[in-house]
């Protein structure tokens, strides 16, 4: 559905990941016999694709399903519906056993750098484990690769003998990145990788991620609630609201001219580091509706300042409004196609 971004020389980049109408619904059970009384529509029909060397940022407020999206793409959660195509291969229903080989292609960086590292393993073993289980290297060779990974992510080699709790938060996140890199994946799903870090350390980790992307031509699915961080690292940005993508566009286009009212509100909430700038903030009324019982029609109609009658009835599809700029809003009519 999206056009491939062009490299400088005009050659189309390969699609690493394509997600089509992906959905993840969690059944809610209650009563004595665990009767399913409803579903949480955490991810509800999301489509996008990511190309080599590209970062797709996913933003949205808490509970909009952005983390679930990341985990479902990795098949850490079983998708309810839709399709996940990784490097041309459909992995939506691949049995866990056969998924192992595919797992090399996509890795994850977690939000909490402490909880995602086994406290009983030495840092060197944590990074070396993926090499061992995929039979990529062993013995001295493995040790050398671990050493070069440590150097690559900016950890001291003598820290291989340390335990995760002996590292600082930023170092732990670097360790998590080294582990993800060990298998030389083509896609890394970063689930709020810097949210748990100090601002100064955030910048270092973000810059490390950018360097790695340039060197290894990595694709990132970068999930975050922090617009500034997403703006810094992403090429394209998807805005999620209640399990759906409401806007998907190139970074510059999205920040310059947001098409969806929710994106507008989100952007207006970003503080500007200049006290003289008077910004007109769009204050959204009310709370995010329950994902168990999403509103009819456009999910955003309960809080939208420009709500029309059609919004309450009909769900707006994600349409290409201007070239490469998608929005799911009834108020935006697609430009006449040329």
């Amino acid at each position, binding site marked *: 559905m999206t056009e491939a971004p062009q490299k400088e020389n005009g050659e189309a980049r390969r699609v690493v990941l394509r997600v089509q109408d992906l959905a993840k619904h969690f059944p809610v059970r209650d009563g004595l016999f665990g009767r399913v009384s409803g579903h949480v529509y955490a991810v509800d029909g999301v489509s996008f694709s990511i190309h080599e060397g590209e970062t797709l940022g996913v933003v949205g407020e808490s509970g909009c399903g952005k983390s679930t999206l990341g*985990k479902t793409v*990795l098949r*850490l959660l079983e998708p309810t519906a839709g399709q996940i195509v990784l490097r041309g291969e459909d992995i939506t229903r691949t049995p866990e056993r056969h*998924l*192992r*080989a595919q*797992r*090399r292609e*996509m*890795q*994850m960086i*977690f*939000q*909490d750098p402490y*909880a*995602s*590292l*086994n*406290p*009983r393993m030495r840092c060197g073993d944590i990074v070396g*484990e*993926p090499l061992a*289980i*995929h039979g990529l290297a062993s013995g001295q060779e493995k040790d050398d690769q671990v050493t070069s990974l440590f150097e690559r992510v900016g950890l001291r080699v*003598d820290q291989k003998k340390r*335990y995760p709790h002996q590292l600082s938060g930023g170092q732990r996140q670097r360790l*998590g990145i080294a*582990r993800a890199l060990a*298998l030389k994946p083509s896609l890394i799903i970063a689930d709020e990788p810097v949210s748990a870090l100090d601002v100064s350390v955030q910048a270092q980790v973000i810059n490390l991620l950018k360097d790695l992307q340039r060197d290894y031509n990595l694709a990132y699915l970068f999930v975050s609630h922090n617009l500034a961080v997403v703006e810094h690292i992403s090429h394209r940005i998807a805005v999620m609201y209640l399990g759906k993508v409401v806007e998907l566009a190139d970074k510059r286009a999205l920040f310059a001219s947001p098409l969806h009212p929710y994106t507008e509100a989100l952007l207006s909430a970003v503080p500007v580091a200049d006290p003289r700038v008077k910004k007109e903030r769009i204050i959204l009324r009310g709370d995010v509706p329950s994902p168990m019982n999403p509103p009819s029609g456009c999910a955003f109609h309960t809080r939208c300042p420009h709500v029309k009658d059609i919004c309450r009835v009909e769900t707006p599809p994600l349409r290409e409004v201007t070239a490469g700029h998608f929005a799911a809003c009834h108020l935006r009519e697609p430009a006449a196609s040329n």
Partner: protein
Amino acid sequence: MSELVPSKPRGDRFLGMRITPITRRRLHNFRANKRGFYSLWILTGLFLITFFAEFIANDRPLLVRFDGDLLFPVFVEYPETRFGGEFETAAEYRDPFVKDLIEEKGWIVWPIIPFSFQTINYDLPEPAPAPPSRVNWLGTDDQGRDVVARLIYGFRVSVSFGFILTIASSIIGVMVGATQGYFGGWIDLIGQRFIEIWSSMPQLFILIILMSIFEPSFLLLLGILLVFTWVGLVGVVRAEFLRARKFDYIRAARALGLSNSKIMFRHVLPNAMVATMTTMPFILAGSIGLLTSLDFLGFGLGADSASLGELLRQGKANIQAPWLGLTAFFTLGIMLSLVIFIGEAVRDAFDPRKILI
């Protein structure tokens, strides 16, 4: 000016193994609990001594010098004819006839206690049970067998039986608990209901019925007791796995492509070992107690093996011979106390809230 030198982790080796700082702190805590620490040494010492029971209490000499030859009856069975006797059967060294034959042409070195656990002392000054004397330090039981010899062998049987049973039931318990906790859902639900029903069965009566059907033996008894004792650890291990399976590092391991069994044993189990290790000494004490009570009721290892429960039963049957009951009582009391003291020290050592300086 002092130079900044990266501090080298101290003493990160124990018995030649690499240990983590946590393990070092636990060892330190364990040692700091003096009662448990010495209990461990005493129990280990007693077990090592009884491990060589054949050299301490035996009706076969350690060494025989006969006709210029050195013979080792502890290891080799010699026929009586070897010493010029009449029968082709194994020599009865305690028999005065054989004794005289040997001493004519050499000498005999006896163990400290010249009785095995089955040896009947026919040479008693009064009818069995005979009171303590120079020959039988703690007297004899009602069949004329030396109490000290039976004690040494009985201690060995009890402790090794307890250890094997504890380890076997821990292995099964950990595997079941790990499976239930890791996979959760229906597996967990069915497992829990099964365990509830299983553990509400009257164990002792079922054990007695089973033991009276089958010919009792060490392995059979072990197997039958295992049927019930594995349940003990399932609860704690299951709880640890239920908690750990939602951790991010387990998710990370799955994302790396590790198989479920590898995740369970490499990532979750080491983190669940604390609960297992703390429970094990108490399971050991329970196992020893269970074996003793079965022996006491006469459904244990059988009459021809040494056992503390059997000694206790003799003490009950022969109130006029208090050395039987008292010996059994004190041995069991001391042994179980040692195990419990060790268990308390282990529990304290693994307690994350307890930090000793």
